[in-house]
């Protein structure tokens, strides 16, 4: 991590959802309110022009973090700072809009993310109009430019989303995200609905756009191989907590947290013929009733008494300054 101020930083970010039943049912069954801690004290710093990736399985809270960082959801605790400024603390609507313009998002589903009743030209042009970036007469020209930038033809703007394949729709979604000239884009599983050959097209497109436009990405995925291809720095999430943060090569060469190691081993390898991954104990626990101490302890091979009792704090390891939340990790 460099010394300069990061473009995006999350400080002690937390999200708690009320998952209680309606109050009448609760009264009748004499149940207490139930809360789900989806995100728990997460710290992230993303320097300008870099890609920070979040990896985790279901229930890890990775999408919730993405939604909080773009301002779609208010954090229950902690703050998100963009260039040092907290989006949710801004009171003037004008300043909020100026902030929104700088942050965009690419969603997972290439089907649900585009309004089926709108022409592509209007979909991509909408952010330009919403932020009043260009006079109305120049919007179409800019849309054509954006279509070209993502590898589509100008005439594609007249079509409706259903006329495109999944990969092309994701290009349209990228063009829409670029329309407001953002500096930072959250990419939430942008290729997990796509086939591999199309996935590589989209990943390469995103990489070249990053180089050309100096974009900063938060890249969210469950797929370690995609993460490895895209990320500069990686955070591994387990049940809402960051268990390990390290730069890409450090993480893949020397995974320190037992959960990271388990993930790496369980992910299928395309060059390991006939390999059987080491069997992991159990499944991801219910996020409403998380295990005590370190959430990973029931599945961990190393577990000691302290893991059951105390929540591990994040500590720094090695010259690479990998941050790991594990009691037993010793370099």
């Amino acid at each position, binding site marked *: 991590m460099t010394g300069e101020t990061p473009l995006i930083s999350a400080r002690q970010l937390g999200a708690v959802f009320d998952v209680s039943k309606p109050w009448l049912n609760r009264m009748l069954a004499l149940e207490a309110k139930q809360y789900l801690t989806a995100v728990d004290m997460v710290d992230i710093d993303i320097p300008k022009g870099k890609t920070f990736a979040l990896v985790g399985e279901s229930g890890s809270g990775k999408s919730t973090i993405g939604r909080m960082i773009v301002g779609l959801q208010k954090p229950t605790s902690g703050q998100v700072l963009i260039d040092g400024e907290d989006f949710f603390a801004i009171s003037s609507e004008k300043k909020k809009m100026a902030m929104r313009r700088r942050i965009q998002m690419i969603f997972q589903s290439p089907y649900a993310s585009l309004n089926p009743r709108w022409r592509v030209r209007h979909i991509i042009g909408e952010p330009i109009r919403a932020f009043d970036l260009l006079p109305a007469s120049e919007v179409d020209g800019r849309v054509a430019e954006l279509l070209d930038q993502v590898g589509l033809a100008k005439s594609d703007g007249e079509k409706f989303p259903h006329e495109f394949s999944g990969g092309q729709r994701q290009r349209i979604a990228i063009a829409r995200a670029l329309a407001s000239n953002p500096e930072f884009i959250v990419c939430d599983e942008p290729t997990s609905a796509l*086939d591999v050959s199309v996935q*590589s097209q989209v990943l*390469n497109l995103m990489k070249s756009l990053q180089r050309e436009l100096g974009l900063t990405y938060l890249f969210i995925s469950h797929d370690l*191989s995609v993460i490895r*291809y895209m990320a500069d720095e990686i955070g591994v999430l387990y049940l809402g907590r960051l268990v390990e943060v390290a730069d890409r090569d450090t993480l893949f060469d020397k995974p320190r947290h037992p959960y990271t190691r388990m993930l790496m081993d369980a992910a299928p390898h*395309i060059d390991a013929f006939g*390999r059987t991954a080491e069997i992991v104990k159990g499944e991801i626990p219910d996020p409403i009733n998380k295990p005590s101490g370190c959430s990973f302890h029931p599945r961990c091979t190393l577990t000691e008494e302290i893991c059951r009792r105390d929540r591990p704090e994040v500590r720094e390891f090695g010259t690479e300054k990998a941050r790991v939340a594990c009691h037993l990790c010793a370099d």
Partner: protein
Amino acid sequence: MLRPVDRVGFEVRAGEILGLVGESGAGKSMCGSAIIGLIDRPGRISGGEIALDGERIDNLPEDRLRRIRGKRIAMVFQDPLTSLNPLMTVGQQLIQTIRTHLPVSSGEARDRAIALLEEVGIPAAATRIDAYPHQFSGGMRQRVVISLALAAEPELIIADEPTTALDVSVQAQIMALLKKLCRERGTAVILITHDMGVIAESTDRVAVLYAGRIAEIGPTRNVLSTPSHPYTKGLMASTPSTTGTMHALSQIPGSMPNLRAIPKGCAFNPRCEKAFSVCFKDIPILEPVDGSEVACWLYDPAVNPETKEISGVSE
């Protein structure tokens, strides 16, 4: 008329796992449905035959086919909830399946059911047997589906994307289970997936499908580490990996053709950089190349311009 699957041929031996890999629209699930005789109308098998243990089964009347389905061929789907009845306990469903296919008393069937649940790794099987499907987690549910598939001791299991809906850690567990069952019981398995990593780790042989046709088929190690068909090559080069040296992902231009507009000749020709005249005219057939079988004109010395020293256009 649309042809989602066109002249696909392969065989699976007992105790062997055959992978069917391809991108969406390649026709891999349709192959699985055809074998088990579950093609929805107006679809039908328009040609070719399917034989189980040497006996032709695709022309059997519906009632005999139904007996084979479940008894000798079982199926495991992507979403375990679609194959389990939410209103019956896991035990009831297992016992029902066992007694439909095997002549045992209900007491024996229950013992067998518990043994099956233990075999697929469900802890405390003797008590969990009376639970309903929704009381199991996703991974455990898929285990129940597998035990249900095993109930009648089938000779062939068709697993259609069995781990796609699961997290990686659970996926590894389920794949290990499938492999173990295949080896120990000598069951043949057809594993349908889009995941090259799963194919590499789990299958003995693999068929790569493209636009309803087999592009390449052979021993998995052979096909994946030294692919011959330009599509397989492209697929391998565009698959990111968690191991090995990092290299830029190459990309295959375009996307899988729409069923209504499959190109003439080799279906891959619009996306293939090696395509030459014959590729646009005739459909290549599978020929042996380096221990695999490949459907590509490049490997036919009679037409390949590079080996034949003539220009591509020879009308």
